[in-house]
């Protein structure tokens, strides 16, 4: 019980499966191998600054940000309504909103394929009314829809938890002092729910920016986000050096986001107190 030694098997495991792989990524990012000679280079990282690749990253960030924004707009009211104390059947409703989180996310993405596809449900409805079928898949809108659909529950849950935790007497106090519903929301509920909003933003934006499944299935083979680019470099092109450089850039981006969001979280907490 006193012994730290119990952690040693894990520490060895962690060095092999976490530390060394990350070091390998860094190693490949900064080297190039010609023949048998491996030498240091910044070319892999420099190559990323080709407008072609910068645009792919920008597109990934914009799409993920849009998806996150839409999830927040759709999800916040859901959390707010669910957290109302007078709501009966709240637990059942919450359960219904959480269940999709437990579904395999490939199935959730695939479901839209059956709806939006050329022979899909929507096009069959169009044909039924004598309208020409439309190309609904393989565009920004389809990918955005897929992202919102996949990640919406991850926005609802943390915001719900933070609203639900708000001390009811604060709200009653504000009401006693003459605040109307809107002011109670703006001055009390909104600021106190911000930590939940921040973790919701993290839980949606981070996986959305690195996705390649949604873009691959709903965006088609030509639709390239940073995740698709990394996959191609490793599995199609076989360029580990450039692929590693891209993975490194993505990692740095995520770390920066995390730092920014935890900073935001601290700010909002201090303000709330």
């Amino acid at each position, binding site marked *: 019980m006193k012994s730290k030694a119990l952690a040693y098997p894990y520490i060895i495991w962690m060095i092999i499966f976490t530390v060394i792989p990350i070091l390998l990524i860094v190693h490949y990012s900064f080297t190039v191998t010609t023949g048998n000679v491996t030498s240091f280079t910044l070319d892999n990282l420099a190559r990323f600054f080709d407008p072609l690749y910068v645009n792919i990253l920008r597109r990934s960030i914009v799409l993920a940000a849009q998806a996150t924004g839409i999830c927040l707009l759709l999800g916040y009211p859901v959390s707010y309504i669910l957290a109302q104390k007078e709501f009966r059947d709240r637990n059942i409703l919450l359960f219904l909103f959480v269940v999709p989180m437990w579904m395999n996310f490939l199935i959730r993405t695939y479901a839209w394929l059956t709806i939006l596809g050329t022979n899909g449900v929507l096009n069959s409805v169009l044909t039924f009314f004598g309208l020409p079928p439309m190309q609904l898949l393989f565009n920004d809108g389809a990918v955005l829809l897929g992202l919102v659909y996949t990640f919406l529950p991850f926005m609802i849950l943390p915001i719900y938890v933070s609203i639900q935790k708000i001390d009811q007497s604060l709200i009653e106090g504000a009401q006693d002092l003459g605040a109307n519903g809107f002011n109670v929301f703006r001055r009390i509920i909104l600021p106190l729910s911000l930590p939940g909003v921040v973790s919701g933003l993290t839980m949606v934006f981070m996986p959305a920016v690195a996705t390649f*499944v949604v873009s691959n299935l709903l965006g088609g083979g030509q639709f390239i986000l940073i995740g698709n680019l990394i996959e191609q470099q490793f599995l199609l092109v076989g360029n580990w050096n450039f692929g590693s450089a891209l993975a490194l850039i993505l990692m740095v981006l995520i770390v920066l986001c995390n730092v920014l969001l935890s900073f935001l979280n601290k700010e909002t907490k201090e303000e709330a107190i």
Partner: protein
Amino acid sequence: MRLRKTYLALILMFLYAPIFILMLQSFNASRTMGAWGGFSLHWYAALFQDRNIAQALYNTVTIGLLSATIAAVIGTLAAVGINNMRKGAKKIVLGLSSIPVANPDIVTGVSLLILYLSVFRLVGAGRLGYMTLLLAHIAFNIPYVILSVLPRFKHMNKHLYEAALDLGASPRYAFLKVVVPQLMPGIVTGWVLAFTLSVDDFMVSFFTTGAGVSNLSLIIFSMARTGVNPMINALSTLMFVFVMVLLFIINMRDSIKLKKLGG
């Protein structure tokens, strides 16, 4: 109140309509999604005869069980060890442990791919497959077990362990009989989390498996890539029903427990 309920209903429709359409289509005799060709269990029959899907199901379940169990053992021991570390060492180990949690799955996937292929090159043997998949799943599962078990130490009474030793228990016996039972709720949470993550994982599996070894996520992806496939509808329906039943049982059990406690 009516406005609020309408809003919730609309969002629920958005969340569930695609799944229900998928389920409906799984009973459609016609291959075309929009046209109803009559009720049929044809796709379910095809599903159960498909060897690849049976194999993928087997891989998903065995890797889920094995990786969650191994991760629970290594992770619990690690949590006990970490709990006894000095502050600095603790911080470093926990920081490194959070890397697979914080990193995008795709980075975890490709970094393990590089590791495996580098080792194979070094040794001159080995190939991607079931073993590499299992090791990858254990690797991303352990941190979740540690994070579930560590908070339990706050509720633990240290003196019980010392008392057991004073009464003549060997350290190992005292550990198994006194410490582990107190950590059990955390271990169970960690195991369930690990199992779920393993079953649901696509990204890491995608990069760490080799030719011929698939799990359900991988097989859905490769089938969906070539377009809509009615067998996936049937498979999805079964998986959805399974998850619903499982969640229902867990919820029922919790509410029964609450009632027993008089809550």
